[in-house]
């Protein structure tokens, strides 16, 4: 076994070395901390700012939007029934009687909803929205009436006439939604 004895000069070197190492350690730690903080600040700066919020609806507008929302669910449900009745009939997954039942049910929902919409009193600022919504309901009703003609003469051409009406109605629903129900559809 070999042993080394430390002399006084070696101890001095050791102490000086330790001091230098400590100073370097503190320096490195400070630099790393600064870098991390700078990175964090940069990340915070890079965060995109939120878009300015849209002006809030007035209490009267809010009340109207809330009341129409309750009807809107039924309208959308009826619109889906109409679409899927046509779709499944065209794909030969639905017999004509079942098709008729679906379209009639949707048609009745549109009529009921129309009465409920008419009973609402929109604030002046939303008169146009109200009219647009009623227009959409009428278009759906016309579409349903056209689709039902298939059950009378068996001609699928009626579906081709009816579909653009439903599509236009759906676009109107979307426009109303954009005005009074922001966030109705989120990124999917």
């Amino acid at each position, binding site marked *: 076994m070999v042993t080394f004895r430390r002399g006084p000069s070696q101890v001095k070197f050791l102490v000086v070395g330790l001091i230098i190492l400590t100073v370097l350690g503190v320096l490195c730690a400070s630099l790393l901390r600064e870098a991390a903080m700078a990175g964090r600040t940069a990340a915070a700066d890079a*965060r995109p700012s939120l878009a300015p919020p849209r002006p809030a609806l007035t209490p009267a507008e809010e009340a109207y939007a809330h009341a129409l929302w309750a009807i809107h669910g039924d309208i*959308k*449900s009826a619109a889906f029934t109409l679409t899927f009745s046509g779709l499944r009939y065209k794909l030969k997954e639905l017999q004509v009687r079942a098709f008729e039942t679906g379209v009639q049910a949707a048609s009745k929902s549109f009529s009921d909803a129309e009465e409920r919409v008419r009973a609402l009193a929109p604030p002046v600022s939303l008169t146009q929205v109200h009219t647009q919504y009623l227009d959409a309901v009428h278009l759906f009703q016309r579409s349903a009436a056209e689709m039902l003609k298939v059950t009378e003469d068996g001609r699928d051409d009626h*579906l081709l006439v009816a579909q653009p009406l439903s599509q236009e109605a759906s676009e109107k629903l979307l426009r109303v939604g*954009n005005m009074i129900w922001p966030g*109705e559809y989120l990124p*999917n």
Partner: protein
Amino acid sequence: MNHDRGGAVVKPRRGTKVTKRFHISVLLALVVLALSLGSVPAQGPVYSVWLVRNSVFKDVPAGAFMPDRAYVPNSTNPMNNQVFFQLPVNVGVIKGGKDVILYDTGWKQQDYLKMTNSVNWVALPELLNRLGIQAGDVTKIVIGHGHWDHAGQLSDFPNAVLYVQKAELEGIEWALTYPNPRISAVNTSQGGCARTPACGYPPLTLQEIYGKVLSGKAVIVDGSMEIAPGVIIHPAHRAHTAGSQLLEVPTTIGKLVFGSDAYSSWEGIRDWMIANPQQTDTVQQFLAYEKCYKITGGYQNCVAAHEPLSYSDKYPITKNFWTGPNDSRLAEVALAPGERTRKP
């Protein structure tokens, strides 16, 4: 001819070791040739592919998009130090043979702009023009799923045949007719679509799909289908929605797999993290990721719909990009032999 050590030229003698060496060399060369031929994949058609950005969903909370990447205040971990993501809406453009195929069609109704806090929207036909493609040239459209931001411009491509999974249509109808209104609701509350089974399917989008069916321009796919030589639809049911589907496309850089929202995030595929869990069965999303690894041999060629790193070096297949109208983005992913570059 041969050289002796002194550099003088000497003629090889017939029937000596040189002839034997020659025979062995030929034999070895034949073996190498046979082996290399065996390793070359069967030659088939390859397609040109571009990716275009229809719009950007601005400031989507990181945790809403990828739960594992939710923002943690003061965190220095790159996985959790981002508050928002800027999500592109990517559309795939595939050209080869007589076909121009779109994978997804983005969205167009301006009403969604405010609803979704979107920016940089450009009509898809306009983006295609930048690639020298007219809307009427599009022959096929494969929608990865039927959500409004992926199936929103179908009627702008009158000649295109739509490919949609049967399971997608059934899933939508099931959700919309479910007896419990909390489940069947297209929206669970005013001002929020949340994550109901029917969320993401406005009446208008379904009308667009229905319009294609009525005009005889729709194929209802039940599982896998080869829609052009080498271009294969793979079902990825419940990987994002009930009838999600992937698209395999052979190119000069290897096979690509488009995944729509089953592949919402390319980083998610790389790091095995779920993303954009709307109507997602997370196990099925992972299996869809695995499908890409199996088909392409890794994650590099998996094409994501909303990858925030799109159109940068950090998502390598999109790095060859340029800027289009309204600060949109177009990327040239792969060119088939003889196809000219569209990059200005």
